[in-house]
């Protein structure tokens, strides 16, 4: 794709967003929509400007929690995937448990985690870890098993040591799956951190949204929602950009 076309596409999208904002502003202004239903974009922008400090602090905190959880969950998930692929006994015993755990509505688990691990950072980061753990585990197992039997047989015929099979065959085959999982778990860990902040914190974006709503400070609430959305989108965009940088070969993942 040429630079000009990308630029044109971006401009068109910016135009669409701008159009939507203008429409929103006009509708809320002309119909005098009450602020608790839908504040005017200008009012939200003002709330944003006059609360830059608390919003930025909440944003950074939530981002830090999400990043910690994302890293922790992926490290644990990928390590366990490696163990499961190496040992079929562990896989037989562990996979049903992992699948059972995955069907636990994780977000609904927050009250339980709050009781067990208390009010604070541990619970929040743990929640984000749990959310990113399962995509990493599933992607790791599927990906490390993705090489064709022919390719594995060739490695065996060439008498390649196991470490080489992983470096040259299994890990490159797993990367597309792992990056696909990143795209799911990066925004999800932001979400998880925000939910956990409802029950286990009095700081962060999730708490700010709830607190502003509870105090009827609706423009601030909307500003915080916009910030939260921006953070989730940013997480996805970073994961997608990392994928594009690393995966430079054509892939077909099921």
């Amino acid at each position, binding site marked *: 794709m040429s630079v000009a076309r990308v630029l044109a596409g971006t401009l068109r*999208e910016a135009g*669409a967003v701008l159009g939507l904002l203008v429409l929103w502003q006009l509708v809320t202004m002309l119909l005098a929509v009450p602020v*608790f*239903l839908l504040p005017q974009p200008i009012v939200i922008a003002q709330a944003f400007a006059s609360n830059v400090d608390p919003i930025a602090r909440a944003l950074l905190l939530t981002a830090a929690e999400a990043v910690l959880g994302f890293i922790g969950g992926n490290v644990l998930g990928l390590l366990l995937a490696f163990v499961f692929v190496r040992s079929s006994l562990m896989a*037989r*015993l*562990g996979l*049903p*448990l992992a699948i*059972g755990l995955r*069907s*636990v*509505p*994780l*977000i*609904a*688990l927050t*009250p*339980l985690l*709050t*009781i*067990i691990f208390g009010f604070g950072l541990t619970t929040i980061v743990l929640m984000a870890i749990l959310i990113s753990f399962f995509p990493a585990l599933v992607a790791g197992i599927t990906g490390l098993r993705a090489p064709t039997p022919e390719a594995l047989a060739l490695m065996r015929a060439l008498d390649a040591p196991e470490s080489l099979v992983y470096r040259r065959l299994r890990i490159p085959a797993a990367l597309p799956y792992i990056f696909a999982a990143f795209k799911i778990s990066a*925004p999800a860990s*932001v*979400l998880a951190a*925000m*939910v956990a902040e*409802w*029950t286990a914190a009095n700081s962060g*974006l*999730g708490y700010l*949204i*709830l607190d502003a*709503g509870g105090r009827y400070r*609706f423009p601030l*609430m909307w500003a*915080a*929602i916009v910030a*939260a*959305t921006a953070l*989730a*989108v940013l997480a*996805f965009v970073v994961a997608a950009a990392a994928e594009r940088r690393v995966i430079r070969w054509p892939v077909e993942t099921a």
Partner: protein
Amino acid sequence: MKERRDWVWSVIAIAAVVLLWELAERLVAARFPIVPAPSAIAAAIFRFATPIWLNLQLTLVESVIGLVAGSVLGVALAMLFVAVPRAERSLYNLVITVHSIPLVAVAPLLLIWFGVGITAPTIVAGLACFFPMAVNATRGLRAASSSALDLMRALDATPWQTFVRVRLPASLPYLITALKLGAPAAVLGATVGEWLGTAGIGYLLFSSMVNFQIELLWATMVIATAVALAGYLLFVSFERVFLGWTPAARGPQ
């Protein structure tokens, strides 16, 4: 045959964990009230059966309405995308952006808009299954083989006939995948939507946490998980029964 062996392993693994947990509780941590023994949780489920069932009914209604409405809207959007490719180009990024709005951020807002009641959790449940359905249905409606589409064109079929006879059957495996994702997501969405409300499984979870009713909290958690899992398994069995001809239904899950 292999499948049955896998089942045996699953049962062994789960039984082992429950047994170890029970033993640990009895031997070591009998005075550790935050994590009750499995037997205590089972007893709590029976003891609190009435409040759990009353709240569960509400959550079930919200989840089912949310799942149906979210899925229908998701398929409708996919049909629009497939029928009018221009619409996809201009709307796709908007849909992705809306999808990125964290459900957690929306729930308090919906509560303000619709007040305490069944509406807000139902909408959260619907949103939770709308996006998997929209994405999968778009992919599914495009999955028809080009030779089948060519045949329909050669037979001078109307767009509607092509849709019903070719595109829809080809999309079924994708739709069922979306439902397998969407059913637990709907339960989850309804639960989160109820957190700030006054009834439902989500409310029960939240209030038992605040009131430190540990056994009720665990019992509710187990039931919520069972319901989400049942929703998933329901569509897995649908897939086995009605879509036995697709590779996904035959292969290992």
